[in-house]
């Protein structure tokens, strides 16, 4: 395409605006990372300076002072637990709703989808009493259940249209070959829906990894705290260790960042289907 000078200027202006916006959007995270590498003196006396020597002291203090080893383990267990429960139950249900028009299925589907709008803080109140009765407080299971039940409607919401779009002919052929309905689901529909399942698995993992509400409500002992509430605990002391706090923020962010970048395509698709 041949461009006039004016066209070229507009294009340069547009690119400049986009680049400036991208830089501005990155500032908070970049700043957090820079601050996490500064020592105390630099942090407090030279707010705008770059880190002089890249100090990892803030990061090591996370493990020596703030229980981050056990919190990391808890966060992993919670996130994987949420993925397993919500993708398994949600995947089966989405397939069921997509393929079998049984009596009452539309009402049940609408009911399930509308629970997506629930205020999490409203659910946490009675759920706290239930978990207390079940003896699951200060146990990662209560957190897994809480996050998973809020995540489940979202998974069905995303996956049902995904299954709807798969060609039925292959599944029918499988039926004729003598597969059971579950066999058709497991051997035919699941592999075909792979990208959709990956999207929801990714977003479910992030939901578990980043949740704050259930941990602060259900667990008060360091043994049962994931990274989010462990990070929050660091703010409650007499002195706030800002360097360590920023390091903790970076530590919490890195896994979701890596996953998001590596699986950007699936993430954006999940975002798009999930509304």
């Amino acid at each position, binding site marked *: 395409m041949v461009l006039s000078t004016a066209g070229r200027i507009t294009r340069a202006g*547009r690119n400049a605006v986009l680049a400036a*916006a991208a*830089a501005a*959007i*990155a*500032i*908070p995270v970049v*700043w*957090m990372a820079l601050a996490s590498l500064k020592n105390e003196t630099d942090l*407090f*006396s030279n*707010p*705008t300076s770059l880190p002089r020597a890249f100090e990892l002291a803030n990061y090591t203090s996370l493990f020596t002072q703030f229980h981050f080893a056990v919190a990391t383990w808890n966060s992993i267990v919670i996130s994987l637990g949420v993925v397993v*429960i919500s993708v398994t*139950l949600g995947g*089966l*249900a989405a*397939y*069921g709703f997509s393929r*079998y*028009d049984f*009596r009452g299925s539309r009402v*049940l589907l609408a009911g*399930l989808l509308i*629970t997506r*709008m629930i*205020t*999490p*803080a*409203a*659910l*946490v*109140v*009675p759920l706290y*009493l*239930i978990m207390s009765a079940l003896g699951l407080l200060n146990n990662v299971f209560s957190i897994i259940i809480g996050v*998973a*039940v809020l995540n*489940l409607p979202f998974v069905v919401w995303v996956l049902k249209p995904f299954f709807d779009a798969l060609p039925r002919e292959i599944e029918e052929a499988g039926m004729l070959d003598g597969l059971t309905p*579950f066999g058709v*689901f497991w051997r035919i529909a699941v592999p075909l829906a792979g990208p959709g399942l990956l999207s929801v698995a990714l977003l479910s993992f992030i939901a578990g990894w*980043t949740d*704050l*509400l259930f941990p*602060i409500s259900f667990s008060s002992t360091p043994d049962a705290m994931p990274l989010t509430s462990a990070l*929050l605990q660091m*703010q409650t002391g007499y002195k706030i260790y800002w360097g360590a*706090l*920023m390091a903790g923020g*970076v530590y*919490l*962010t890195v896994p*979701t*960042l890596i996953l*998001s*970048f590596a699986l*950007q395509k699936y993430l954006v698709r999940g*975002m*798009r289907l999930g*509304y």
Partner: protein
Amino acid sequence: MDGALTSGQKARGSRGRGPALTTPADWNRRIQLTGLGLTLPALAFAFAFMVYPVASLVLLSFQDYSPLRSTTATNAGLSNYAWVAGSDLVHKSIWVTLVFTVVSVGIEMAVGLALATLLAKLVVESRRLFSLALSRVLNSFFILPFATPAIAGALAWKMLLHPQFGPVDAILHGDIAWFAQYPLASVIVADAWKTIPFVLFLVFAAILSIEPDMYEAARLDGANAWQEFRYLTLPMILPVLAVTAAFRAVDAFTKIFDIVFVTTGGGPGTDTQVFPLLIWRTAFDYLHFGQAAALAVVAVLISAVLGASLLAVRRTAST
């Protein structure tokens, strides 16, 4: 032919074709049972940990109950609802949440739409290697806030806006305690930052799905960039904009918690005590589970109304 998988009615029509080893009635029963069997685990889970708790919430809202102080709940009649209706704390919280929702969603939509429009223009010419590379890099930047956990983003903003050692005040040579002096505005900025990518990517996808021929036609008619946006892009993506805004508004109103909890904790005073935070504090800080339940019932009703209208918007927009 999808008879075998959809409904008994169609299966009946297909009698005599294919390996008809079962009667239509058997087919129908099998479909009913399989459908129920596949969905039952999820429904049972949702019933146990969503429907039942919400039902017990209604019961709890008519009681006086402080689990850490006493093990018994006493009948409170309508007193919790009377408190909700009459309390300035509650009214203020709803007002704050409403202001937060409107302003935050407004900013997200405006910035998200502007950036998506520019980004789409860039991608359309991505036959050029430079544009392609640039759009890839920009995408990675734009996804950053979405990929950052809300609590980490909130901490980052708290640091940025810190009166003593935040870079913003250092650059402005001021000592404004942003989260204390302009609490709601600061919270809104942090929330908008976190959610702009969501709007951006949805709108971006909508713009890219417009037929390139239409832009070609507009150009041949001599439309300038603004006219192109105003009379072509905007009308075409209006349904997506409506659904996105509605979705964001419902989410902002019902789910705002982490960012406020971490940055202002609802303060100063109750200036940023958004509704979800008020429910949580009433239960877990003040230990009035009965009052918290009444608030939660109100929240669930608001969610149900918003959710139903959202489904309606979605249906209207997609037709």
